[in-house]
């Protein structure tokens, strides 16, 4: 398979009946937790794959598949702020890009020896990170509690 070619769009089987619209956008969107979502040109080192965008009541989910086959989902509020990200796949996403200004807080927690090789939990007032797994099978999420849309349940971060 040519890694530079577009990846197949994944069907989001978990969508609820609250989906208002579903569209495929061809320009990949690079977004950072806590920042405004922005559409930028391809970054060959970072995220580079097709994008699927799904609007649910009160927020939008952008799904990206990285060249390493990791699925990254970016949850964007109605005002355009990225309030949560999740990932699932064989390699970790680039946390400097994904977590932005929250990267240092994540990194400090990543030095905690108690967590063990396969699990990391950050329970900060402004940042929650749950990162699990091993190479070939990582999964996790990160969100900013103060940016969660009203009536949003963190259980909806898939």
């Amino acid at each position: 398979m040519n890694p530079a070619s577009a990846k197949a769009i994944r069907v989001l089987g978990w969508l609820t009946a609250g989906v208002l619209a579903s569209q495929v956008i061809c320009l990949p969107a690079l977004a950072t937790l806590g920042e405004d979502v922005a559409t930028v040109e391809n970054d060959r080192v970072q995220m580079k794959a097709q994008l699927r965008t799904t609007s649910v009541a009160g927020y939008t989910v952008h799904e990206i598949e990285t060249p390493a086959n990791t699925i990254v989902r970016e949850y964007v509020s109605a005002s355009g702020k990225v309030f949560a990200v999740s990932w699932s796949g064989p390699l970790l996403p680039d946390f400097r890009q994904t977590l932005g200004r929250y990267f240092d807080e994540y990194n400090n927690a990543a030095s905690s020896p108690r967590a063990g090789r396969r699990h990391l939990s950050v329970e900060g007032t402004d940042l929650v990170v749950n990162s699990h797994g091993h190479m070939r099978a990582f999964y996790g999420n990160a969100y900013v509690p103060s940016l969660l849309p009203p009536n949003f349940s963190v259980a909806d971060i898939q």
Partner: protein
Amino acid sequence: MRANLIAALIGMLCVVGCGGGGSSVGGGGGGTPSGANVQPVTVDSGPSPVATSNSPAVNTLYTTVRVCVPGTSTCQDIDHIQVDTGSSGLRIITTALTLSLPLQKDSNGNVVAECTQFVDGSSWGPFRLADIKISGEIASNQAVQIIYDPAYPIQTAYACGTGTTPANPVQAFGANGILGVGPFLQDCGSSCVQGGGGVYYTCTSGTACTTGGMPLALQITNPVAAFATDNNGVLIQLGAVGGTASSVSGSLIFGIGTQGNNGLGNAKVFTFNQSGNLSTTYKNTSLSRGFIDSGSNAYYFTDPTIHVCGISGETTKAPGFFCPSGTLNLSATIMGGNGTSSAINFNVTNADSLFGTGSVIAAASDLAGSSASITTASLNGAFDWGLPFYFGRSVYTAIENQNTSAGLGPYFAF
């Protein structure tokens, strides 16, 4: 209450086939196994910088590995190498290595390096070549990652973990190194052949490394597969633990069905599902992301009914672990892709009651942590059978594409 709990634990351990710690399998008699394919392993508080720190090791399995300059008898024994069935390849913290080993280079003469992804922090380092000798087995001329090797120091530009070398790398890592004896041949595999994941690098000089794809032949590999014999997998046998212990001993036995001491016996084989995991059914929910992992220091799963330490803002020494008010008696069923299943009884105790008591706790059989967001109410499909699963058991890990009496790996068996 406590006497009843201990009796229940002993009863449970006998159900899963206790016969004394370290008993042999497959037709051998009782007692500690021996042979050229048997390597002693221990669960203890870790190497000195870890054992004397604020966070001594808990549920971490260690052994001693001998590395030699390839083709010579110039060797070094390095203790407290973590034994990990969740990764592949040998990695050594640079401060624990005194040998001078040659660098591994690709076909262009460039040094190969890796930003190894561990959830608790990425590890940077170039590959050097060594003969790896464990017990009587030898893996010749293997790539060994030297974590924080000063000849190829981490640069901020590599975007690997913190981008800096820790002040005390052994303490930060929790071990002098890690021996990945997992079910896969390469640590990364096809995901890293194509590049783009920021894992593999080629270096034209000590400070000039660029990320890119890496062919499988140059990726760091499970050294067991390179043994001349006993190379199709490993068997780990640990003593039983009823609650806590200051140390546990056991054996890392190389090969499955290759010697009199490593036959499958009555063990059941669990192949992987399509996502490379085992399935686990817990409280009537089928979870697809299950795995057995000696490198995890507890059971990890999602259960919103179990209180997570610190979740209500209370002080905790164990954030992310479970802190039920009493000890819970739980059960979950492991199922392989081949349909084999086995119900496992296990306990979960209050993690805060274990840490900071003043006595040395290096092994805790009933330690468990939350695998999901601490506030989510959804089950996210994961169940990590960490090191407590190994206490009092014989657990086999078969390597992919290697032949065993029960077919080709990869699989787990117990």
